[in-house]
């Protein structure tokens, strides 16, 4: 079985986000880039499956759509334990564009794992779109996945409980938190070995983006906090009523 894990290259979740001059994209200067946290969990689970099932899993490949500066993120994925990486040399314009690019390389993989959302622009559509483009079944909001013979045992969180599924391959699973234990920290030997692992750069397929960002805005700055002494309940109620207008 071959596993493909889709990897988003996103700003570190503690980054103070700034936008470019016309507010149409994140200002990349000074940003630390990381593997999208949900994709990192997907990769961690793929590695756990390989460790648990050995030869049943032939290889784990990671793929992203991005320019050369995203290769550090792919190298980290290789250092953690992926066997190969694919970078499709294009700007990830929108979900359909990204899914179309990935469809050109993803067909050979029995299991495709995609994180449920991307931590940068909060995108959620690539996984589902890719499954459609490949005409392959998919399951969303997966929080558990294991291999049992030729079948995948999958658990999903649903309203008020969990759903257990048994699915055959090929399959695309959109995964969320709970799918794996903690993400792994690349060890020094893994980082060194990642040097020798293939990172294949593929030219972009002919595709068009259907959407474009008009502009972004930052959330309004938090208003100053007004402190009320503990014995001034009447004053608090008056402020909530007259100033905050929430009562």
């Amino acid at each position, binding site marked *: 079985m071959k596993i493909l894990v889709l990897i988003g290259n996103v700003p*570190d*979740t*503690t980054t103070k986000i700034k936008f470019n001059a016309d507010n149409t994209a994140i200002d990349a200067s000074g940003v*630390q880039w*990381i593997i999208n*946290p949900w994709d*990192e969990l997907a990769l961690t689970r793929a590695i756990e499956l390989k460790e648990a099932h050995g030869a049943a899993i032939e290889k784990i490949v990671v793929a992203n759509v991005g320019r050369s500066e995203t*290769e*550090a993120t792919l*190298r*980290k994925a290789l*250092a953690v334990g992926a066997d190969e990486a694919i970078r499709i040399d294009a700007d990830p314009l929108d979900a359909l564009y990204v899914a179309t690019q990935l469809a050109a390389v993803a067909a050979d993989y029995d299991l495709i794992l995609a994180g449920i959302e991307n931590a940068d622009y909060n995108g959620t559509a690539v996984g589902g779109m890719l499954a459609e483009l490949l005409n392959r079944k998919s399951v969303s909001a997966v929080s558990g996945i294991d291999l049992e013979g030729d079948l995948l045992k999958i658990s999903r969180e649903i309203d008020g409980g969990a759903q257990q599924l048994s699915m055959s391959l090929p399959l695309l699973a959109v995964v969320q938190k709970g799918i794996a234990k903690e*993400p792994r*920290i*690349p*060890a*020094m*030997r*893994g*980082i*060194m070995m990642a*040097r020798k692992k293939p990172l294949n750069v593929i030219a972009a397929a002919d595709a068009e983006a259907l959407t474009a960002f008009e502009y972004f805005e930052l959330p309004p700055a938090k208003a100053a906090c007004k402190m009320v002494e503990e014995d001034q309940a009447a004053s608090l109620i008056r402020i909530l009523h007259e100033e905050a207008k929430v009562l």
Partner: protein
Amino acid sequence: MSSSNYTALDYFELDELLSEEHKIIRSSIREWVNKSVKPIIEDYAQRAKFPLHLFKEMGELGAFGPYLPEQYGCAGLDQMAYGLIMQELERGDSGIRSAASVQSSLVMYPIYTFGSEEQRQHYLPRLAKGELIGCFGLTEPNHGSNPGGMETRLRDAGDHVILNGAKMWITNSAIADIAVVWAKDEQGIIRGLIVEKGMKGFTAPETHGKWSLRASITGELVFDEVKVPKANLLPNIKGLKGPMMCLNSARYGIAWGAVGAALDCYDAALRYSLERKQFNKPLAAFQLQQKKLAEAATEITKAQLMAWRLGMLRNDDKATPGQISMAKRNNVAMALNVAHETRQILGAMGITGDFPMMRHMMNLESVITYEGTHDIHLLITGNDLTGISAFV
């Protein structure tokens, strides 16, 4: 996923001088320190306990002997990688970095550099994994800055040697499985040998009551007629050059490590000064506090450049002992000063364990003394500059 608000100062965009691989190495160790060291280290330091479980974790991470070859279970990385690892570990705590420094530069490095192939294969893979803990015995009760005067002796006894003497201020001593010990033979020549825990007559009592490196074990090594097989002698080195080469490697790592401690203090102080208000404005708005922050940032930046350049020289095998002394001395003094100044920004809060300054400050009092004192390093550099040794 990142779980820390820590932001490393990079005022002169020195990151551009690092490779992508170096940055991955740094972020790995940084992440591990955030996850495994930062949440517990204050408690261990307060209780004067070494978090022993971290030793195995550092081994799994590959933080021991990272620049030694893969065939011995190491990562085969360069000196810049070693420096960055030391920087990030010391951001956590000088005691944790000390444990890694000793294991890497003072135990694995001499076994690799001066040892036989059998010794390399026997010890290095387990030392790399953290399954074996090592320590280094050079300093003695009567010989600190003058190690050449050592009194520890070994005498020939057929297929083994008999070791007598005592070593002091030994990091990891009480928990070490092996000790790389330096002693004079009957001809007065300094030899290195590997002494194993459990050898009859070898004890390693712990030194208690330290106000510094509290989350690190320090102790003595006492040898009373210890029979050590001759196979444990390091065959490829004689003389003081052996331990000095080890110290050069360790001191280089300290030059980076000190930057880590300073970065931690600076980051904590900057964030505090932006949040804490007095007279209706943040502390950071006051000129005297900005002076402290600006001076700390300046000194850290200079130290970063020095460490980086020294790493390049080490990679080319060109760094001289004088250069290494200059960087170790400058950067440790810088870090101690930054810890002191940034602590003041926090006022009374700065003396508590809720912030790292006091712990770093106390740790750095050891770091400024061990591996060559602040004064001795001037004489090493001075010797290099003038060609005249001021030691004798």
